Structure formats: C-alpha cells, structure tokens
C-alpha cells in the first residue's frame, strides 16, 4: 500500500500495536524546558522512576527567563525557583541542560535544529505546542502535556493513536516582501483554527521546496494554530546541508548512513490523503491578523471585518467579541491601525534569517517616536551571529532594544508584556486575548511587516519599504 511520509515514520517507531487501536511509539528526541517539566520530574521521584534515556533528552531554559541582563541573577522569585528546579532536576536525572549562562541557551525550537539534535525521520516531542517546528526537517514532531513528558522520561515512548493525513500544497513563487509567515497565516485563514484537528499536515509543492530551511520552520511552527499537532516537510539536500557539521549531527560513517536513510523519507507518489488543499503562492500577499484567533487574517490592503455581514450567529458573536477586545471598529482600513509596540522574535520568527529580513527594512531608518520596539534573538548563537553581521547596530540605530534570548513577549511570562489596550505588531504565533499581557492587543505579522510597522507607527505594507 502506498504510504505518506507520516505513515512511514509512524511505522518505523511502533514498539507495540495495541488491539484497541492505540500504539506505543518510540521517541528519539525529547526536549524539555522549565515550565512544563517540574511536575513530571516530581512524578518520577514520587514513583521512584528514572529517566530511561538521558542521552535522548535535552533541556533548555526559555519560557520564563528575563531578556535583560541576567548576570546578576533573576529577580522574580517564582521564575527563579522554576529555573533552579530545572537545573536541580537535570543534575539529579543526568539530563544535559543549556542553562541561563550557556551561550547555546535559547528557545527550545530554535536550539534543537541549531545543535543538530533535530534530525529527519525521528519522533520528537516537547511539552510545548510549537514542537511541530522540527517537522521542517521531515521529523514527526508534536507537543505534549506534562503527564506525557513524565511518560516519555520514564519509558522513552508515548501512547498514541494514529492521526489522519492532510496535505497542503503551495505552488508557485512568492512576490517580493511576501514571506513564509504570510504563507502560514494564509493557510490558517483558509482551513480555520480547528481545520487540522485530528490530522498530521504535510506541506508540499514547489514553493515549499524553494523555501530555505529556516523559512520552512516558520510554516511548520504554526501548524498547531490550524489545529494539527504535527506538520512536516519531506527532507531534501537543503536539510542535509543545514545539518552537516552541527554539534549533535551524526558524524563520520554515521553521517553517510544517516543521509542514505534520510533520502528514503518521502511520501509515495500514489499515496492517499484524507484531506488536501492547494494554494497558489502568487495569490499570497502580506498578511495581518485583526482579531483574537490566528484564523482572523486579512491582507494588509484589507479592512477590519463587519460582523453585520456575517450570517452565522456564533461567528457574528465571535467577531463582535474580538473587535471589542481589540478596540477596533468594523470596516476600518488595516493600514489606519496605529500601533504602540513592535516585537520581533519567538520560535516562529527568532532565527537569523528573520533578523536579516527585519534589518533589511530597518537599515538607515528610524522607528516612529511613539513606538516601543524590541528584538529578541531566538538563541545565544543567533544573537552572536547577528552581532557578527552588524545587525544589532542596525536595530539599535533604528531605535530598537536588542535583548537576550528567550520566549519573551510571545507569551509574556517574564517582564516583557503589553499593558492593557497596548497594541502590538508581533512576529509571534498567537493573538489570543491576554496572550502578550492582560488586555494587550496583538497583530501577527512577518518580521519585515513588523519592521515596516515600527517605521510607520501603524500597520503598513512592507512592500513600500524594500531597500
């Protein structure tokens, strides 16, 4: 029977198929962080269990950590306790940790690929819903809860039921100023926030193959915003080149064996998908979200929707609720929306290519005076690379704050948060109510669009700012 890439990875990882349809699946790579792991380690301790494969586990601090100077410790007591708890747990159970003062520290989904910990054909899990990011390497990567984190630590497996197959084909070429962030926002707008529930998505088509490895990560990253737990892309030469020589990538004869295997990781040409959609890259323009769900997308040339035009009562109520929260009037032009804050960073858009994209727009420009703007690199290594390229000088020159790596204002667990009614153009992944701070208003955009918004002081079309 012809199989999809997902089917093949699934079968390769079956430890035991149970009669009730559930399966015990082997986990090759387990990433952990300070927020969703303490209760899992506590569970292990209470049941007198060990970490089965510490070598297949990697820990990073990211969610909670301040992005200002950390050399003198962390002021917030609860954050400090959580970070210290991870440190203690990793020592006790023999897990490698990139801690606060390690230059490899960063956002878990940026660190994994950067270190070569992320590899094609593997099953990768993490107690974080954006784990699908690693699917860009042709791995089956998905987010899990803390009980499942404990299960993986103890058994190196997970009890899972197979999902259905969904293929999203994007063909053609993107116009200048349009990025993979716009592509994924367009996809979520099309399928809706629950459109992928119960599926694993494979992204395919000529555009996806043309994208760089990091741009592919942006697309896979936001898969969960369309409801699917995992999204993946067939690995190719770009992926192998990206991984070659990274600290945790296979070495010597293992490298050759690995690449030989990775080349077999593809969907059979006659494989059947349970659901399939097609998008044309030429139709995609710079996108913005107007509401409080990632499916609430509109083009930068568009207008805020009018609930009166909606016939479905639930949908109408939902739009009204969103507009009230967002402080927006129906039918207002998107480009007339003034912003207070710009945030560039997160596991969606905190990699070096994202920073280059923003820097290209910001070069020799200044942010609008009323805008507070910050850039948070995705990892210590991304920060170092950006500084070597002089990007930090462009950002600081444009009036941006240049911060230490972490999740920061994407989820606002640390001090980086919006005040009530503050409006932000953000390169992160969620515009939920209160996500970036109580009462904060989020508009999701690409790094280039965020840079354009900083200069203009309102949401604006990045295509006007191409240097």
């Amino acid at each position, binding site marked *: 029977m012809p199989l999809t890439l997902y089917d093949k990875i699934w079968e390769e990882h079956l430890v035991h198929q149970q009669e009730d349809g559930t399966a*015990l699946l082997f986990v090759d790579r387990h990433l952990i962080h300070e927020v969703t792991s303490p209760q899992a380690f506590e569970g292990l301790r209470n049941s007198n269990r060990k970490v089965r494969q510490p070598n*297949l586990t990697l820990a990073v601090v990211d969610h909670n950590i301040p992005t200002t100077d950390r050399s003198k410790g962390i002021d917030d007591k609860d954050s400090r306790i959580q970070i210290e708890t991870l440190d203690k747990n990793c020592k006790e159970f023999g897990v490698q940790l990139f801690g606060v003062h390690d230059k490899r520290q960063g956002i878990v989904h940026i660190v994994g690929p950067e270190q070569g910990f992320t590899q094609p054909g593997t099953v990768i899990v993490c107690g974080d819903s954006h784990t699908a990011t690693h699917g860009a390497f042709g791995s089956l990567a998905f987010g899990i*809860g803390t*009980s499942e984190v404990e299960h993986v630590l103890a058994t190196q497996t997970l009890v899972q039921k197979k999902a259905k197959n969904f293929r999203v084909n994007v063909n053609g070429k993107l116009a200048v100023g349009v990025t993979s962030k716009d592509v994924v926002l367009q996809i979520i707008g099309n399928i809706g926030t629950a459109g992928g529930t119960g599926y694993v998505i494979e992204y395919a088509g000529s555009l996806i193959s043309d994208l760089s490895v990091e741009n592919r990560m942006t697309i896979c990253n936001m898969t969960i915003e369309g409801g*699917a737990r995992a999204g993946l892309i067939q690995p190719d030469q770009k992926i192998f080149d990206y991984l070659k020589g990274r600290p945790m990538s296979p070495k010597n004869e293992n490298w050759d064996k690995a690449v030989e295997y990775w080349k077999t990781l593809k969907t059979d040409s006659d494989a059947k998908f349970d659901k399939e959609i097609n998008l044309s890259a030429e139709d995609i323009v710079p996108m913005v979200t107007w509401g409080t769900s990632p499916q609430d997308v509109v083009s930068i040339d568009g207008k805020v929707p009018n609930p009166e035009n909606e016939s479905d009562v639930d949908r109408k109520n939902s739009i009204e609720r969103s507009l009230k929260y967002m402080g927006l009037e129906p039918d207002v032009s998107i480009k007339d929306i003034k912003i207070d804050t710009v945030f560039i960073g997160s596991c969606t858009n905190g990699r070096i290519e994202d920073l280059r994209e923003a820097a290209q727009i910001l070069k020799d420009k200044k942010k609008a005076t009323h805008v507070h703007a910050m850039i948070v690199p995705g990892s210590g290594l991304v920060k170092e690379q950006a500084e070597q390229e002089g990007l930090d000088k462009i950002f600081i020159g444009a009036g941006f704050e240049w911060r230490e790596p972490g999740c920061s204002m994407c989820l606002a667990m640390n001090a980086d948060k919006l005040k009530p009614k503050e409006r932000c153009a953000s390169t992160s992944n969620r515009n939920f109510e209160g996500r970036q701070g109580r009462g904060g208003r989020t508009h999701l955009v690409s790094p280039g669009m965020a840079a354009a918004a900083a200069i203009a002081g309102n949401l604006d079309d990045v295509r006007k700012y191409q240097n």
Partner: protein
Amino acid sequence: MQKFNTLKSIPAYLPIVNIDTDMIIPKQFLKTIKRTGLGKNLFFEMRYDDDGNKIKDFSLNNEPFNNSKILIAGNNFGCGSSREHAPWALLDFGITCVISSSYADIFYSNCFKNGILPIILEEEKIKELSEYSNRKEEISVDLNEQKIVYGNNETKFDIDPFKKKCLLEGLDDIALSLEKSTQIDTYEKKLKENKPWIFND
C-alpha cells in the same frame, strides 16, 4: 489518578467558541512547580477585574455554578498551548467533565491523564443541555454506560475504549507502558544496530 464513574451536577455554560488554554489559565500562573492550587485562577481574566475583584456577571463566580462539576462550552475548546495547567486548573476548581462539540487534540488527551472526562456531542445537543444550565437543573453523566441523562431524556456519547478504561479504573498509564519494557528493550537494541546515529554514538 482519581477514578471517574458517574457524576451529577448543575452544569456551567460558557457560550464562547475557541476557548484557548491562555483563557483557561493565563501564563502568570504557570510559574508553579505544583499541580494543585490553580482553581482559584481558572478563567482568571474573565473572572476577575483589574483590581482582583470577582466580576459579578461571570457565571462561574455565582451560585450554583461556582460548584459546577460539569462545564459546557463552545467548539474547539482548549486550543492553543499544550499546558497541562489547563486541566489542572479545571480539576482544582472542581470540574471533572467538559462537554463541547470539539476539542483541541493536546488538551483532549491531557484531560484523560487527570481524571477529567471530555465529552463530544453535536451542537444541537449542546444547545439542549445548555438549557439545563440556564434553568439551574442537574444533569448526570454515566461513563460506563456512555450516556448523559437530563430530565426525562438521555443521550449517548462515544469514547475510545482504552481511554474509558483508564478513567474508570484511574490507571497509571506509565505503569501500563512499563509492562512493555521487554518490547522497548528489543526496539532500542534494533535501533542501535540500524540507526546508530540516534544515540549520538
């Protein structure tokens, strides 16, 4: 884990779609290293004003819904972050059963790890049941029989047999998986031979 068998309660009703896990428990409460104590912060931003006072017209703040064990909500409940703090907060508040027409995958599986039963029903049934919340009348849930009884009516619901068994018996699924240790050993041995790079050797 607490066993789930039958449950009787006046249901609380939140007629909102896409209730995400940030709404269920905002991030400032994720700094805990415990599973308990999150109930008072459940639906924090809808439940309290800027000064920390309870918002009067939010149903879960008022009798009898402050004691509801069943929550009825709009579709795609629990979307967003994987935080298990969401079911922990529901559980700590006293809610052990959620009824919606659909759930986000990660939230759905997290419920079962914590003795919470997430029931999926059609929108029409949800509307019917919400009337019981409006009238402050009890409904009852029977997991073994897979049915909800309301007034003189009843409706059946589907559930995965393995998940049902775990809830009914309050099973520790790590212990169940560790019974398969021999199979895991065999798998790892084979993996070391076929894909040695996985172990960084």
